[in-house]
């Protein structure tokens, strides 16, 4: 059963520490997304990649967040330094093909981040 895999599932860290979240997209999917979910803002797009190239990261605070795809099977989202306002659930999602193809986007189970 193909699925998007995210690690860690839960993370509690102190303010100022570096946090790295990892995502393994579904094999063969060439588009990867990072979303953040908070009570106040709902689901927000942070960044997305196609064929490992970043297409849009305008939703990401550039001073502390970075997203990369070192290879087709791994996407990373890094926060350095972390702040309490970064506490949220971070979702990775993947899909196949162009966005105008309407192909379904599949989500991982999320990484719950708490920054104290």
């Amino acid at each position, binding site marked *: 059963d193909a699925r998007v895999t995210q690690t860690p599932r839960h993370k509690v860290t102190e303010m100022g520490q570096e946090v790295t979240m990892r995502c393994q997209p579904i094999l063969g999917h060439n588009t990867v997304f990072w979303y953040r979910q908070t009570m106040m803002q709902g689901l927000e797009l942070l960044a997305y990649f196609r064929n490992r190239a970043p297409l*849009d990261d305008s939703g990401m605070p550039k001073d502390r967040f970075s997203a990369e795809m070192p290879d087709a099977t791994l996407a990373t989202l890094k926060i350095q330094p972390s702040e309490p306002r970064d506490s949220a659930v971070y979702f990775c999602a993947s899909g196949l093909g162009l*966005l*105008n193809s*309407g192909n379904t*986007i599949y*989500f991982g189970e999320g990484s719950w981040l708490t920054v104290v």
Partner: protein
Amino acid sequence: AQTVTQSQPEMSVQEAETVTLSCTYDTSENNYYLFWYKQPPSRQMILVIRQEAYKQQNATENRFSVNFQKAAKSFSLKISDSQLGDTAMYFCAFMKLSPLVFGKGTRLSVIA
């Protein structure tokens, strides 16, 4: 930019009854895609149903169906024979040449 509006923050329904969740969106596009995702307490985002705007026929998936009104830009979700396991947040989402844009969600509680 496209926007998606879910006007019902919370709803409840008795088990075995039918409930309809509302969603409206704003776009100037003609062809696009609409989705409903379910998020149970586990926070997993689960696709419930999808609709292509160029298709007039409303999508159905077992107990879940949509009422797609393109002219009105409305995309409601009907859940028939509600079950306790349907208790979740439900998100309406739009996609066209850009990643999924989500509404704020509707929290549905199914009551025994």
